[in-house]
């Protein structure tokens, strides 16, 4: 056990690409925690997707031994937190496990919206914050402007910012000293009953479930019986380790320390981030505050392109779910798409990550239906229901009112594009909460319905600002609004996979966009096909796909019979990729494109 006064626990807050992982790598490397030959760029981002996209999805931690200039030996625990709002709750727990943060800002770019959301989490957790201006070796670096911005936008003192180039190693030593001298030591009582926070957990194919904890009070030792206070489950500690970043066994962990254990836990699902761990006997009385069960926010259907892939998809989803308590699923049947799953996610990135992993790691071709948020239905008989799937929307006559989730969106945008951003937010039923300037950029805060954001908001934002805007959001609560289910009818047959919940005022526009898109996506048939968007029995938008006028081979003589026959046989086989609606065949690609979020 290390003495409290010689422990420093911290996280790094940064926007994507501002150099968080590079800085973490450099801190680890310069203290000799990892030998140079074992160094892989961005050591802490372990999943392919994390490394490729430069984002952190799971919390990672590393324990660094550091001998400071004063000759004292310190233990520095770095928790690399998820950098995305979808994982906001996980971030908040990680933040509660440490006492300080390094706020990394790219000195060539300045503060971004995502930085803001995470730094507010750090401020909420009462962190001491050390600003780190990265990439000062680049010619475009503008240290003074960025310092000013940090003070204006975030409201913290930036005069003592560390000037760093994680790439070249400038300022790394000074940053380590600042961690020791400017961040507070943790507090805790080693004689009190054990109280530890479950910060994160993951599945390791050799060890089973690995649980990361921060000890608040008391001591935890190998072999002890412990209890998870939220789930009530009891386990015996098999293995207790610290991460350097590979596991190094340790006999005990005391207050202020961060480590991992295994305890023959079968599924990650059995562990809850934010849960309090104590001893089975003589445990603490009250759990740590702030625990929340994982709550999916965005739902969509995942269907195999090839119906034969349903069982492999089920296996893959079950495997992923074992390691991700925040991902939920249940079977869904669609007339259009066959058998699949309705899945719940923490947000759009979470959705994308899971889908990518299913396609990549399990080699599946998937159709993703339009993402939907969770609506609260207040029925006339007093019942309250959650609606995850527009297809399940009951008849409006039974519904008293509907509430939808709203978010607080934070957008930072160069003022040249401000007008476009305000218009976009306004079009999406947004309510402006705040508008301030920081240098040549505007900080816009809007209250927006989440369902307008999951549709294509982020892509529209990127396109109207040429990619210069940054965006982040947090859920704020539910609010009643005038919401309706819009159905799509092709040749008078409803296509369940295309129905969606929309605001009444926006229904016509959305319906028009959808029918126009479908008109281009569905191939012409031998007859004309009406494509309609409707609310209840009322058609709000209509296009007619005209009949095929000409499709005939000009020449077909004796030498062509074989080739034409084989072509027809091939087209027959290709029909498996078509979905039949009454007399109309809709190619699978049409669903994919019509529902594509980024169009």
């Amino acid at each position, binding site marked *: 056990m290390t003495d409290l006064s010689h422990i420093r626990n911290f996280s790094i807050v940064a926007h994507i690409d501002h150099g968080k992982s590079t800085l973490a790598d450099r801190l680890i490397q310069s203290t000799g925690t990892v030998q140079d030959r074992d160094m892989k760029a961005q050591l802490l981002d372990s999943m392919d997707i994390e490394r490729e996209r430069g984002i952190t999805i799971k919390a990672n931690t590393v324990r660094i031994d550091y001998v400071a200039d004063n000759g004292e030996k310190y233990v520095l625990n770095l928790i690399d937190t998820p950098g995305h709002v979808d994982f906001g709750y996980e971030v908040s727990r990680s933040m509660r496990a440490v006492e300080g943060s390094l706020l990394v800002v790219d000195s060539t770019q300045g503060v971004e919206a995502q930085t803001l959301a995470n730094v507010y989490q750090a401020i909420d957790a009462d962190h001491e914050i050390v600003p780190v201006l990265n990439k000062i070796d680049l010619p475009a670096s503008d240290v003074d402007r960025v310092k000013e911005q940090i003070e204006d936008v975030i409201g913290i003192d930036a005069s003592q910012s560390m000037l760093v180039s994680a790439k070249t190693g400038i300022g790394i030593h000074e940053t380590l000293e600042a961690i020791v001298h400017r961040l507070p030591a943790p507090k805790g009582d080693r004689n009190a009953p054990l109280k530890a926070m479950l910060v994160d957990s993951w599945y390791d194919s050799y060890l089973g479930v690995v649980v990361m904890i921060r000890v608040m009070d008391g001591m935890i030792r190998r072999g002890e019986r412990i209890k998870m206070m939220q789930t009530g489950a009891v386990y015996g500690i098999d293995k207790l380790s610290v991460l350097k970043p590979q596991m190094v066994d340790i006999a005990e962990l005391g207050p202020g320390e961060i480590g991992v254990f295994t305890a023959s836990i079968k599924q990650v699902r059995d562990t809850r981030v934010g849960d309090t761990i104590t001893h089975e006997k003589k445990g603490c009385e009250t759990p740590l505050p702030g625990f929340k069960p994982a709550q999916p926010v965005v739902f969509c259907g995942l269907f195999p392109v090839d119906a034969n892939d349903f069982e492999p998809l089920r296996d893959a989803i079950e495997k992923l779910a074992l390691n991700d308590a925040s991902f939920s699923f249940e079977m869904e049947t669609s007339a259009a798409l066959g058998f699949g799953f309705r899945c719940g996610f923490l947000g759009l990135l979470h959705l994308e990550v899971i889908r990518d992993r299913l396609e990549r790691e399990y080699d599946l071709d998937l159709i993703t239906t339009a993402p939907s948020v969770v609506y609260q239905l207040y029925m006339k008989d007093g019942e309250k229901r959650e609606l995850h799937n527009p297809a399940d929307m009951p008849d409006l006559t039974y519904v008293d009112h509907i509430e939808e989730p709203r978010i607080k969106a934070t957008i930072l945008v160069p003022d040249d594009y401000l007008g476009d951003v305000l218009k976009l937010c306004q079009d999406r039923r947004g309510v402006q909460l705040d508008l301030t300037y920081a240098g040549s950029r505007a900080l816009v805060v809007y209250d927006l319905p989440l369902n307008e954001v999951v549709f294509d908001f982020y892509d529209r934002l990127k396109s109207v600002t040429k990619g210069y805007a940054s965006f982040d959001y947090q859920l704020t609560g539910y609010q009643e609004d005038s919401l309706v289910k819009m159905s799509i009818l092709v040749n008078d047959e409803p296509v369940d996979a295309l129905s969606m919940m929309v605001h009444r005022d926006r229904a016509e526009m959305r319906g028009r966009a959808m029918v126009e898109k479908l008109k281009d996506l569905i191939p*012409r*048939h*031998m*007859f004309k096909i009406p494509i309609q968007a409707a609310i209840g029995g009322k058609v709000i938008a209509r296009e007619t796909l005209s009949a*095929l*006028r*000409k*499709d*005939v*081979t*000009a*020449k*077909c*003589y*004796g*030498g062509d*019979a*074989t080739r*034409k*026959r084989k072509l*027809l*046989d091939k*087209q*027959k086989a290709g*029909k*498996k990729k*078509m979905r039949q609606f009454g*007399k109309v065949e809709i190619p699978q690609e049409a669903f994919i494109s019509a529902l594509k979020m980024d169009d």
Partner: protein
Amino acid sequence: MAEDWQAGGFGLYVHWPFCLSKCPYCDFNSHVAATIDQAAWGRAYLAEIDRVGALTKGRLLQSIFFGGGTPSLMDAELVAAIIDRARRWWPTVNDVEITLEANPTSVEAGRFRGYRDGGVTRVSMGIQALNDADLRALGRLHSADEAMRAFDVARGVFDRVSFDLIYARQNQTLEAWRAELKQALGLAIDHLSLYQLTIEEGTAFGDRYNAGKLRGLPDQDLAADMYEATQDICEAAGMPAYEVSNHARLGAESRHNQIYWRYGDYVGIGPGAHGRLTLGGTRHATEAERSPARWMQLVDQRGHGDIVYEPLTDTDALTEFLLMGLRLREGVDLGRLDALGGGVFDNNINGLIDIEMLERADGRLRLTPAGRPVLNAVLRGVLGG
């Protein structure tokens, strides 16, 4: 019991694989060669006729067709020798049709009389367009004037002369095509083949198209308008379409091509030629080696030039029967369809009759006028998924 092919007839196709130049739209098996040893080719063709003749001896031959390539590059003696040899194996019907495809140049017109004397009864001329600019764009070596002179020679020599035009060409307007077609009908005797330009993979046009460099092609609507105008104009002139792209006065239809569409048996001889032969009660597909040099070598060394000789399954035969037969305005015979196992498609067929793409009448199944321009879609619908 009669075999199914007998309802379609029996013919001989002879493929001459050489051209003076390769047209950019053409995906037929044609080659440009510096010298051609016509005597050697003659020996190979005769050997092949002897081989197949022995297998099908005594069948009544309705037609011989010299296609290519450019068969009007063949020596008249070679054509005559092939016809003679065919007659030795197969009795012919009284009005046997012997067609030769010809390019409309003065050189070739000079050979017409020789072809007639050797037994050719009909020529089919690749005129393709009636103005010089479009002929150049199509890679043709003749001018419109030269074509007209060759055509005049042909009609003086043969009773039956047909010619081909290609429409829906680059930058062609509907009005320009209507005018050109009317001009063509003024020249035509009793048969015309009118093909919409089709961009085929592996041709010069195909490569240009894939590279995005083949501009000015009509969209589906203009192509459909041109097709409709073609039907109307030809019908009014007494030359209705008896097949998708073939128009004739009543009785002047190409008998040889009708063997294909009525799904008869045909012998295919020469590089890349295909055949259908019912032997031992089973329909077989044959296909000859495409490369002229290798084909000659195979015939010489192995005794035959075929690289494919395989039985067709019942399903294959049924598919071919429909895909060929529905091209004809007369459609297919319901009795034959039934005998070939067409009952499996009854539901699909009834669905297409409901939407008025097909009709059953006079013991036949055929396309309605609305179904004709979308034959491929109708076939996909009949064969189902």
